């Protein structure tokens, strides 16, 4: 308004910069690999920049960018001929590539569990549980009904609980040699 064209542009850039850390975190949680996630963020920046005329200053830049990123991801996956449901090939390399990326083993287990979710459930729980969006905003970003988002988040939670319990039991695997000794020591 009073600032004129130039200051409006730089504030577009400024707002975009402010949203970038969260946008990267969103991409990374969806994809599980830093290199691919950052490529997707870059594509999103280009797309968003090209259509900045469609963005109304003062509205939620973060939600707008998240919507673009999400649409871009799914359209790229379609182009590559990958089923959206098929999370396997897309995510498997992630832990091998960045084994030390996350502080604790605990978080790596969680990351693995997150990658086992169907993409629609994964994005729902990330948007609501980590990105700080309301259910309403998440529904808008995903282009679906409010009830759909709620049920996806619920299913994601249930599924994560199931997976993490299974993972927890498997933790005894590598310790197979010491565990029997320990228990014997306690029993006898």
């Amino acid at each position: 308004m009073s600032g004129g064209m130039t200051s409006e542009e730089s504030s577009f850039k400024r707002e975009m910069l402010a949203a970038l850390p969260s946008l990267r975190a969103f991409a990374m949680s969806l994809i599980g690999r830093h290199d691919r996630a950052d490529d997707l963020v870059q594509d999103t920046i280009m797309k968003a920049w090209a259509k900045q005329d469609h963005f109304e200053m003062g509205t939620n830049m973060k939600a707008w960018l998240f919507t673009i990123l999400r649409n871009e991801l799914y359209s790229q996956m379609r182009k590559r001929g990958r089923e959206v449901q098929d999370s396997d090939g897309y995510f498997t390399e992630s832990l091998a590539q960045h084994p030390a990326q996350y502080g604790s083993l605990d978080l790596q287990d969680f990351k693995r569990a997150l990658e086992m979710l169907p993409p629609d459930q994964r994005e729902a729980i990330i948007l609501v549980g980590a990105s700080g969006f309301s259910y309403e905003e998440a529904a808008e970003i995903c282009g679906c009904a409010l009830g759909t988002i709620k049920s996806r988040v619920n299913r994601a939670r249930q599924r994560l609980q199931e997976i993490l319990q299974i993972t927890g039991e498997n933790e005894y695997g590598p310790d197979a040699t010491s565990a029997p000794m320990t228990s014997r020591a306690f029993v006898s």
Partner: protein
Amino acid sequence: MSVRTDNPNAQIATKLRALYLSVQEEAIPDRFLDLLEKLDAVERQSMPDVAE
């Protein structure tokens, strides 16, 4: 031995946020700062006649 007594949803929420924050707290990579600079510069160059 375990903390399983905690609300499992709360545990999941905590881990999800920790994972997310681990990326969000990273510095913005230079490639994005450079990219935005370039996009902005290109725009400024092609913008002198905005009247239309």
